């Protein structure tokens, strides 16, 4: 989009940054960006350093890699070792540490692990190599779930017999409900996930504004979008006018994408599921419906795995809930660093700890 280039115009961005910098909130305002992609965009732009005093940004649990429990990875790895399958995955999962290593470690040991850009790529691999069993690691929120649902439906139409998925899809709204009911949490407003909202629309978030009186703005991912989102949130908060607004109008319709939601509903059903750091959140995950059982890797490749306690000292759970800063974890920066992460918040490039690591080691001229 030529418009994309205009949105990235340096003069525009500098001016917007000046506008943000000169905000004078009447009281301390804390905003949470829910989505990991937002965390990454915010840190890549160096936005935290541009916020005025009185305005704080904290990161939430919207990083699918960060909230996937170790048991999921351990299951995938066990399936690979016991059943000689080809694991296919988005790149995001490759370095996440499970109980006995990551998918990268698994590949280094000689097991078949392929990075794909799309679930369709995994299905195409299965078509090209009918003698092999292909397992796709289906991770992601409501943005990704419909794409996987569509792929599974296609696989069924083609009568594919060597393609299964291991689901770990999660739903944002139940997590937001869990967050907002946490009495320790002090958030005044949410930067809501732009692309999840392309699918969901704005309706599902209304309870945040109407019942819990927090500001909400569904925001895009360009720096300009995020800055506009922040300005809109501060305005809502200052005016005590709590609503769900859509900043990302060029992509998000209030009604979302019903066709995408229909795909999710047809192929998946909600289930209670574990979020790393939160424990079980009711009806917050997606499982394959019975009619698609032949595509369920959990069923086709049963394995036993051992329960994995959280590593000693790892405070990812509290970080994910916005309760502590990454630097408050004693492992941060010493045992837990990007090239050998202990917890998922450091693994994922969009995890709060990884993002914080890049900025907290700022040279002195950057601090403050």
């Amino acid at each position, binding site marked *: 989009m030529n418009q994309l280039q205009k949105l990235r115009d340096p003069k525009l961005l500098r*001016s*917007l940054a000046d506008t943000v910098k000169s905000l004078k909130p009447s009281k301390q305002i804390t905003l949470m960006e829910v989505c990991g992609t937002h965390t990454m965009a915010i840190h890549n732009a160096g936005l935290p350093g541009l916020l005025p005093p009185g305005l704080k940004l904290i990161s939430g649990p919207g990083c699918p890699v960060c909230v996937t429990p170790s048991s999921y990875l351990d299951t995938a790895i066990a399936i690979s070792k016991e059943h000689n399958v080809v694991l296919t995955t988005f790149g995001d999962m490759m370095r996440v540490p499970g109980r006995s290593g990551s998918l990268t470690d698994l590949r280094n040991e000689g097991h078949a692990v392929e990075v794909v850009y*799309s679930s369709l790529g995994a299905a195409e691999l299965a078509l090209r190599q009918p003698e092999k069993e292909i397992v796709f690691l289906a991770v992601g929120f409501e*943005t990704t779930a419909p794409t996987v649902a569509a792929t599974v439906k296609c696989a069924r139409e083609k009568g594919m017999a060597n393609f299964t998925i291991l689901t770990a899809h999660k739903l944002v709204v139940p997590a937001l409900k869990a967050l907002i009911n946490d009495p320790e949490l002090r958030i005044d407003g949410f930067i809501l996930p732009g*692309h999840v909202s392309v699918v969901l629309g704005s309706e599902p978030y209304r309870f945040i504004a109407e019942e819990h009186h927090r500001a909400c703005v569904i925001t895009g991912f360009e720096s300009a979008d995020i800055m*506009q989102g922040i300005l809109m949130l501060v305005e809502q908060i200052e005016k005590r006018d709590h609503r769900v607004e859509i900043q990302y109008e*060029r*992509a998000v319709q209030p009604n979302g994408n019903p066709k*995408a939601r229909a795909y999710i509903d047809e192929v998946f059903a909600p289930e209670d599921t574990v979020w790393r750091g939160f424990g079980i959140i009711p009806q917050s995950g997606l499982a394959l419906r019975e009619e698609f059982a032949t595509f369920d890797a959990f069923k086709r490749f049963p394995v036993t795995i051992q329960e994995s306690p959280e590593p000693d000292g790892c405070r990812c759970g509290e970080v994910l809930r916005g309760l502590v800063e990454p630097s408050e974890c004693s492992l941060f920066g010493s045992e837990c660093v990007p090239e050998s992460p202990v917890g998922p918040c450091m693994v994922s490039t969009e995890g709060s700890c990884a993002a914080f690591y890049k900025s907290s080691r700022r040279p002195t001229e950057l601090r403050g």
Partner: protein
Amino acid sequence: MCLGIPMRVTKLLPPDKALVESGKVSMEVSLLLVDNVAVGDYVLVHAGFALEVMDVDAAEETLSLLNQLANVEE
């Protein structure tokens, strides 16, 4: 939790795919999740799928509003 970029539809590939382009790079995407896509439309692309047809007018409005916001401080 999602990378998505706007790309312009350059060719429809029935039954359910299209060729899309951005910055002189083309790729195939699935149209299964959207309806009524025409050549020239911009779609939001995520993990090999078009997730939505983008609203070009809304994009213009956003740009306009942003430029106004930016000028406020000058």
